[in-house]
Structures are given as C-alpha cells and as structure tokens.
C-alpha cells in the first residue's frame, strides 16, 4: 500500500469503529470492547508506519477534489510532514491507552458502548485535523471534536456539574470558533484556496491583505480550543467528565489541536508582529495565571487541568517566538506525561474514593494501595516540573531556549519583545509548576491520618497503561537530537543558561513547597475533613462520578476546600481565595455575558408577555366589546326584536323607494 492509502486509513479506521460501535452497541455488547480498542490500535500501527515511511523527509501532499464548490475549491487533501506524522503517533498512542484504560475504568458503566464509540469518533476527528491538508476539512475535524467533547464531558449527565460543564465547554469553544471560521474564510479568499500549502505559498509571496486581522481571528479559535486565556475557563470545569476523557481530550489531543494549527500556519502569524506579541502576551498570562490557580485547587483533576492550560501556554509561547519545533516537541512530551498524570489520577481517585486533595492528605499509605500509580505519577510529575532528565525538562528548555534566542536579538522570526515576555513568564511559571507539582505529590501520597480505604487491586488494563505511558514521560526528551530532522531543523538541545535557570527555579519551587508543607502538615491532624464515595466497591467511573457530585456539598465549591493544612494556602496568602476560583474570570464572564443575556432574555420575555400580549389582547378587545354590545341587545324581549326588524324593514323599503324613484 502506498503511504497515502495508509494515511487515509489512519483517521478512517477509528471512524468506522465508532460507527460500528454505535450501531452494534446495544445488540451485540460482546463486540463493543474489541470495536473500541482494535481500530484505534490499528490506526496507531498505521500512524507509526506512515511516520516511518515519511521519516521527516519531504512533506507528503495528496489531494482529490470531490466536487466543484464555487470560487474557492475545497479538496480532500493530505499534508503529512514531520509534525503531522509525529503528532498522529502521539494521538494514536494516547487514544489507544485511553481506550484500553477505559475498558477497566468504565467496566460496569451501562453507557460504555456509546462512550467508546464517541472516543473513537473523537480520535478519528483529531487524526483528520492532524493529517488534513485542507483548511475546511480540518475545520470538519475541529468541529466534530467540539461536539464529541460536549457529549463526553457530559457523560455523567445525571450530575448538574457535568451538564453545566458540557454546555460551557461547547459554548466557550464555539465562541472562539466563530471568529475562527471568519478567519479561515478571509485566509482562503486571500489565498484563493483552502489548501495549506497554497495558503503558505500565498503568505510567502506576500499575498495576504490583512495578516493581523486574519491572525487575530484565527487566534480566537485557537484560544477557545487550546484553552488559552481568556477562553480557558471551560477546561477546568470539563473535569466533570470521566478521567480517561480528561486524559484524551483535555490533556493530550483536543487542546493540542489549537497549538498544532498555529504550528501549521505559523507563517501566517509571523506575517504580523502584532499577532505574535498578542500571542506572547496571551501565552504569558495563561501560563502564570493557570499555575497560580493550579496551586489553589483542591480537586486533583482540576490541578491537572490548570497545569494543562499552563503547559499549553508554553507551547503558544514557543509559537510566539516563532519556533514551532519547540512547540510541537513540548506538545508531544506533554501529551505523554499529561495523559499519564490524568490516568494515574483516575486510579488514585478510585482508590481514595475522593477527588479532594484535602481528604487525601488525611489518608495514610495511599501510595501503598496504588504502587503503580504512585511510581508512574511521580515520574510524570517530575517531568511536569521539568526536572532533568525527564521528558518535560528537554521540551520546556527548548521553549525557554527559543524565547531566549529571540529575546537576545535574533528577531528574524518574531519580535524581541515577544521573546522577553515568554522568557520571563516561562521562568516564573517553571517555579510555580514545580510548586504545584510538589504540592500535588505531597498531599496525595504523603498524607497522615486514618488508613486509606482498601478497594482491592486496580484492574490490570489501567495499571499496564500507566507503565506504557511512563516510558515516553521518562525518556522521550532524549530524542531532542533526532527530532530536528523531522521538524524545521533548528536545534532543540537545551541551552546552558536557561537550563540552569529553569531547573534552579523548579528546585526552589519544589523546596519552598516542601517547607510550607512541613509547616502546615501539623495542622492537618487537627482539622478533620473529607468525604468518601458511597459505593467504594463500584467501578472507577462510578466512584469518580460520586466524588465529583459530592465535592460541592462537602466543601462548598467544586474547586475549593477550606483546608488550613494546604501548603498552597500558605504560599499564596491572600491570593489563594482568588486563585481557587480562577481569578474570578467566571464571575467576569457572568457579569459581561451571562447576565446581559439573561437580562435580555427576561426583557424579551417581558416584551412578549406584556407588550405583544397586550396587542394580542387589544386585538381581541374590540370584537369582545362588539360581542358584549350585541349580547346586550339580546334582551329576550320579543317586542324589541320585532321593533328592530320592522325598523330595518322600513329603512330598507324607503331606501329601495328612493332608489327606484331616482330621488
């Protein structure tokens, strides 16, 4: 088979799996698991094959036009370069891991068939985005991911949190998608084609009329999909979905789509230095803010969600300094270790029966209950905190190195100010990242107090996947020497000054957090706290759903617990309260959008019920009045009737006479 055929099969197989799963899910439940895992696995194998054949050489381009579509043609096009090949492998790996993990995680879930089919569909859509060489085809995958995300986040639709989160995720990403669509149209009109290669050719030839406008419009869509400030608020709330969904969608793939999209169209953004500065500022605000917020979260998955937002900030930062190699490098390593973190968190939540760090910090020996999750999560957290020699260190240093490169005057790709912003914020975030990673680890695994509940051994499918993912988290960074061949060719090796600075800051962050934890941990014993799921014997999905549903009643908020023993509280001081709620961005949105819309709705309702209804009633009033008058005439007195009758007769007769005599 040619490489093109293989590449077409990569997104097609999971799609067929999804269709088959949806069709057969109810009638043949035995086939659901194979139908979920096997197409994804095959697609991973094919993606690896495609990557091997492509081998970082010339980009593979292939297109076919199904039907003429007016002025700007839309083609089914493939564009596979090194980025696409490697990202597709990442998507395949994470999706396969998630599918295998889900067989154990949602073992007893009655909605597993539709869930697995949606995950397959989602995988297919992401692979389509990755391989697509046409912007409109890419948009199709982009939107299919949006709707799958809506369904999957709302998997536990019995709980109000999940319902609200799914709607929020959908609406916020759609809010970005509208400018995104307009931007795509502007781009396609300017370039005369939606083919990425032609668009890039037009950009290189200076054919773009309004590069800043187009770039900012596209940026809005990317901010929505990749959860960048100010459209990131949906991501932490999306943690109301099952953990594998969080791992797949909200850590490794869907949010990466935005970054990947910019990486593909980076020349469009580079054509406008204003857009690059905006991108840099967005990345900086996202990184620093999300890291602070992550430090204050109580729900372990929300910590990871904010950490995802922050790491995506690194990627957009790398793009802001014009180095897409570093961005995709970080995307790959982050995809691996963040998927691992989420999946391990799912195991921990199952074992502890709670998703609250405050409750976990009051459990002794949780790590002994879940040794696999303990060790793999440690690896992943070290990778997240960018401690050498883990994968996160190399990718993050490549980002910081690229920023330093630009900041020190090599401004051929990006303005120097963008490099400065990304460098400073990246270093600050490195410190904060290490701090919240340490806090997470300490609170989850170093608790004191009662014995952790024993729920038996975790399913093999879940634990095995953790170890599979631990390998790239540990060792992927060593590929920095090979990867430039696949990317633009720029070196991704860590530079000495930023490495020392970044690692030093990370160590400082970790140590400070440890000190704070030592200081506060004595308090933990004094303040009993915690709520544990009611059905510890249920499967992990059920336990998690109950944990999420019970968090707000137990602690007063989905994100926050009044725990004085939290080191984050000590470190953040007065900022803690604001960081816990995401710096009130939701409240701002509430005031800016929700309330005006509600007010508008109630105004419309008022207009409808009072004004329009008044007209309707008024229209009825005249006939009613006439009716009343006519009714009043019905006195029942026969003489009145006869009088009226005869009077009418006389009038008619006289009139007829007048007409007849011609008077």
């Amino acid at each position: 088979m040619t490489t093109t055929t293989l590449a077409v099969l990569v997104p097609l197989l999971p799609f067929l799996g999804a269709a088959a799963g949806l069709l057969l899910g109810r009638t043949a439940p035995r086939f659901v698991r194979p139908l979920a895992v096997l197409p994804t696995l095959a697609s991973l194998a094919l993606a690896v094959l495609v990557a091997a054949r492509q081998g970082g050489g010339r980009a593979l381009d292939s297109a076919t036009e199904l039907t003429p579509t007016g002025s700007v043609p839309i083609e089914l096009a493939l564009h596979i370069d090194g980025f696409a090949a490697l990202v597709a492998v990442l998507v395949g790996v994470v999706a396969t891991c998630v599918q295998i993990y889900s067989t154990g995680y949602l073992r007893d879930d009655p909605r597993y068939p539709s869930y697995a089919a949606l995950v397959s569909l989602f995988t297919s859509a992401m692979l389509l985005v990755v391989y697509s060489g046409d912007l409109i085809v890419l948009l199709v995958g982009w939107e299919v991911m949006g709707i799958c995300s809506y369904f999957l986040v709302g998997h536990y639709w019995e709980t109000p949190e999940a319902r609200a989160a799914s709607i929020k995720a959908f609406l916020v990403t759609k809010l970005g998608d509208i400018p995104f669509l307009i931007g795509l149209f502007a781009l396609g009109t300017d370039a005369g084609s939606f083919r990425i290669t032609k668009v890039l050719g037009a950009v290189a030839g200076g054919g773009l009329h309004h590069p800043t406008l187009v770039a900012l419009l596209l940026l809005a869509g990317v901010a929505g999909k990749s959860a960048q400030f100010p459209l990131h608020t949906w991501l932490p709330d999306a943690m109301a979905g099952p953990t594998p969904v969080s791992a797949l969608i909200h850590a490794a793939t869907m949010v990466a789509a935005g970054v990947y999209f910019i990486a593909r169209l980076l020349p469009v953004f580079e054509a406008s230095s204003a857009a690059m500065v905006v991108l840099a500022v967005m990345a900086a605000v996202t990184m620093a803010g999300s890291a602070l917020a992550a430090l204050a979260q109580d729900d372990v998955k929300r910590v990871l969600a904010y950490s995802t937002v922050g790491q995506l900030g690194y990627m957009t930062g790398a793009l802001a300094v014009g180095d897409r190699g570093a961005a995709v490098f970080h995307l790959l390593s982050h995809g691996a270790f963040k998927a691992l973190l989420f999946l391990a968190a799912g195991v921990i939540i199952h074992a502890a029966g709670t998703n609250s760090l405050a409750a976990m910090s009051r459990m002794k020996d949780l790590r002994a209950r879940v040794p696999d999750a303990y060790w793999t999560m440690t690896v992943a957290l070290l990778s997240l905190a960018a401690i050498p020699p883990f994968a996160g260190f190399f990718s993050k240093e490549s980002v910081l190195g690229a920023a330093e490169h630009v900041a020190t005057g090599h401004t051929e790709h990006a303005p120097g100010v963008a490099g400065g912003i990304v460098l400073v914020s990246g270093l600050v975030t490195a410190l904060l990242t290490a701090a919240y990673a340490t806090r997470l680890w300490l609170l989850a695994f170093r608790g004191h107090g009662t014995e952790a509940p024993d729920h038996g051994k975790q399913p093999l499918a879940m634990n095995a996947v953790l170890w599979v993912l631990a390998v790239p988290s540990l060792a992927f960074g060593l590929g920095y020497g090979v990867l430039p061949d696949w990317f633009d060719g720029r070196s991704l090796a860590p530079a000495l000054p930023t490495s020392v600075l970044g690692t030093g800051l990370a160590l400082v962050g970790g140590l400070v957090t440890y000190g704070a934890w030592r200081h506060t941990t004595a308090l933990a014993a004094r303040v009993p706290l915690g709520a544990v799921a009611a059905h510890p014997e249920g499967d992990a999905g059920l336990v998690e759903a109950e944990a999420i549903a019970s968090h707000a009643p137990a602690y007063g908020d989905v994100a926050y617990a009044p725990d004085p023993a939290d080191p984050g509280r000590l470190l953040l001081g007065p900022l803690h309260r604001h960081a816990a709620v995401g710096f009130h961005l939701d409240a701002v949105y509430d005031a800016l959008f929700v309330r005006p819309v509600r007010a508008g709705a109630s105004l419309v309702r008022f207009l409808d019920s009072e004004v329009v209804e008044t007209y309707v009633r008024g229209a009825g009033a005249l006939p009613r009045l006439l009716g009343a008058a006519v009714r009043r005439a019905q006195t029942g007195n026969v003489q009145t009737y006869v009088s009226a009758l005869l009077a009418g007769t006389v009038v008619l007769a006289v009139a007829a006479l007048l007409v007849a005599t011609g008077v």
Partner: protein
Amino acid sequence: MSPAFATAAAAAAPTHGFLSPTGVEVAFLLVGLATFGAALVTVTTRQLVHAALWLVATLGGLAVEYLLLTAEFIAWMQVLIYVGSVVVLLLFGLMLTKAPIGRSPDADSGNRLAALTVAVAAAAALVWVVVDAFRTTWIDLDGAASGSTKVTGASLFQNWVLPFEALSVLLLAALVGAIVLSRKAKADAANTGASAQAAPGSRSEKEGVR
C-alpha cells in the same frame, strides 16, 4: 311604478278632483275616520276590555267600508266571524288570563317610544307611496256589485276550489293543534278546568268559517 299607474289611470278615466267628492266618497271618508279613530283607541286604551270593544267598532267600521266598496259577502263575513266570534274569543282569553278590569297603568310596555317611531315612519312611507301611486286612480262603483254572494260564490267554487279545500285541511290542523295545546296544559295543571273552554271556542268559530 307611480308613473305607470298614473298614465294607466289617466287613460282609463276622466279626472276626478279630490275637492268635489261624490256621496259614496264622503260616506267612506267619514266611516274611515271613525274606523281609524276606533283603531287608535284600541291600541292605546289602558282598559283591556275596552280595547276589545273598540276593536269591535273598528271591525264593524271596516265591514261598512266593504259594503261601500260593493263587497257585500265579505262585509257579512267580517261581521259574522270577526265581530261575532273572534272578538268574543279574545274577550274569553282576557278573562281566562285574569286581565284586570278597569284602567291598568302598565298596559303599554317600555317599548312604546320605539314602537311609535317605527309605526309613524312606516305610516309616512306607506301613505306617501300609496298617495303618490294612486292619486288619480278611480274606482267606478256603478253597475253590478262585484262582491255579491252570487259572484263571490261562483268565483270561489269555480276558480278557487282547490285552495279552499286545502284551507279546510289547514283549519282542521289548527283545530287539532288548539285541542292538543289545551289538553296538554290541562294535564299539567289539573286544577284549572276553565281553561279547557278555549278549545271549543276556537272550534266553533272555525266551523263558522266553513
């Protein structure tokens, strides 16, 4: 229509002025005035029994008018049926419904003003039309009476036999209907034996018609 009649009348007869009335005309006019006056009293008097008696005067006056118009058989029929039986029947009805003897203040309903308006308007319109149409039409009353018993009988039983017999069926139906109405009411209210007399009364006058 008035010009057609006017020309027909003008062609048929010489002009007869209103200011030189014949004897018949004077008589007709006087009796007519009396009749009209009696009719007015009939519909305005507050004494119900008097109204019936004034109705007798009106109907009698009309009988005289018929005579003056040489329709003698109809005049006698008028006297026999109307004056003789209908008015008697009406008087029976008044008594049976316990109509007050003497002046009753509420003989007229509240509808009087409307009734007056309609009646006056109708009268004005009718009189205007009739006068306008037949101002010059002249009835020549000389010669054989056109309404003698012989003439009327011949006409009735030569040309009008079928309607006459149909009418007899109608009268039979009315007879039965009146009996049924009265009997049913009697069954409902057994205490009023007097009411049964209405039915025989009506039957008798119908036979009179036959």
